[in-house]
């Protein structure tokens, strides 16, 4: 049932590509660049965030006034604020599109589990960073979100009180709360780049930036949204007040909508369960490569006497599993006699795909369970097999 659903979604994803290619040149398909688009929006968030940070005052008395000053009195301040707000939404949408596309097209299994896991961490940290951004305005919505979050954290067994103190900088809202919120916004935002490094480290040719056409379109869309629906604060937070409703941002604040029907603790538990399920998705695939008719070929091995240090395998390996090191001795073959570099396979990254074998013109790499003689045997077996019946 689950496999059939994924298979249907995979077909739908590929059909969507076909429709897009009818309207756009193939290399302009935005769904090929969802990761790059997320990077673009993250860059816009960092740049606009730095500009906003210059005017922000992290205190209970000054936070709201400083955001209002930025919005009303600073030239183009309302534009920077709007671009920051809508880029955050667009960033999350791009991440979710990236996640679903890779999920539906099976690009999360086996060797790609590292990308999937780092991607899930990126999603969680991004969502948390976006949520804390809403608190910094310190309006009625921020006050209500703070109150609901405290209720949710308090319901966590054993460490609930400690989590509340970490969140607020004390047992209740106090003078250190807004600086704490600012740290909880900027700190995780900086860790996004560490997570991005993890996301890319095993990829040789990641598409980290979209084509110019999508950069122009995305920037344009942000400016249009900013002008059509300028970002605005609610009423300022009042000490002791308990606001009841708030304008919902469905991208970041949907867990708080659940609080209408669920206790905040249960809403938190649901979010944690969803994230936990997302983390284990690559490990829910039960079939081993052998069960799926794929033969284990063994990790690639460098035939040192033949390696010329030409780096072709290094550039072609999509998993960053080949490194070039200074050659300690010359090769034995004529072509390898004057080499300066030697290819080395990182076993933990090799997925036995054989791309390096195809890349090497000097027969300096081999898959130990798919040697030349194995290939020749398979060809001969195929030649001896009876031809399939034709109607």
């Amino acid at each position: 049932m689950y496999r059939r659903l994924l298979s249907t979604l995979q077909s739908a994803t590929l059909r969507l590509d076909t429709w897009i290619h009818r309207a756009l040149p193939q290399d302009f398909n935005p769904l090929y660049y969802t990761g790059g688009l997320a990077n673009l929006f993250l860059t816009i968030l960092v740049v606009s965030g730095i500009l906003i940070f210059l005017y922000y005052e992290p205190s209970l008395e000054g936070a709201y006034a400083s955001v209002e000053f930025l919005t009303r009195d600073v030239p183009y301040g309302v534009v920077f604020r709007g671009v920051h707000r809508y880029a955050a939404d667009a960033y999350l949408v791009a991440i979710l599109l990236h996640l679903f596309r890779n999920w539906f097209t099976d690009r999360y299994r086996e060797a790609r589990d590292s990308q999937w896991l780092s991607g899930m961490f990126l999603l969680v940290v991004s969502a948390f960073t976006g949520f804390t951004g809403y608190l910094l305005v310190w309006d009625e919505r921020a006050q209500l979100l703070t109150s609901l979050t405290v209720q949710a954290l308090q319901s966590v067994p054993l460490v609930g009180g400690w989590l509340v103190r970490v969140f607020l900088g004390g047992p209740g809202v106090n003078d250190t709360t807004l600086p704490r919120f600012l740290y909880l916004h900027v700190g995780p935002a900086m860790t996004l780049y560490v997570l991005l490094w993890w996301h890319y480290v095993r990829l040789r040719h990641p598409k980290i930036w979209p084509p110019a056409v999508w950069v122009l379109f995305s920037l344009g869309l942000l400016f249009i949204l900013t002008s059509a629906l300028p970002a605005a604060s609610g009423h300022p937070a009042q000490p002791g007040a308990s606001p009841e409703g708030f304008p919902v941002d469905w991208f970041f604040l949907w867990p708080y909508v659940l609080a209408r029907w669920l206790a905040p603790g249960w809403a938190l538990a649901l979010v944690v369960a969803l994230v936990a399920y997302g983390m284990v998705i690559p490990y829910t695939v039960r079939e081993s490569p052998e069960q799926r008719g794929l033969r284990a070929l063994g990790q690639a091995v460098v035939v040192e006497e033949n390696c010329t240090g030409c780096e072709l395998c290094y550039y072609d390996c999509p998993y960053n599993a080949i490194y070039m090191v200074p050659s300690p001795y010359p090769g034995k073959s004529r072509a390898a006699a004057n080499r300066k570099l030697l290819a080395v396979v990182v076993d933990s990254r090799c997925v036995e795909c054989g791309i390096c074998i195809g890349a090497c013109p000097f027969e300096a790499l081999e898959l130990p369970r798919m040697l030349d003689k194995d290939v020749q045997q398979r060809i001969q077996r195929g030649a001896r097999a009876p031809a399939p019946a034709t109607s």
Partner: protein
Amino acid sequence: MKGQDGSSGYLAVAGFLVVLALVCVALMVYGEWFDRRLVASGALGVLLVLYAAMVVLFRKAGWTAEE
């Protein structure tokens, strides 16, 4: 740079977008001059989207820098 047969339709649309882009530039100047900055930023947004559309149209018309 090369063109393709039947590219004149795409180029005509691109030409129309160029005119719209000039209007956007005028709106940007107006917005800055009269302190209507949301108008200026909206016009900038439309201008960028128009540029993106023009790039696509030029590609579809075969007007590319590639061989």
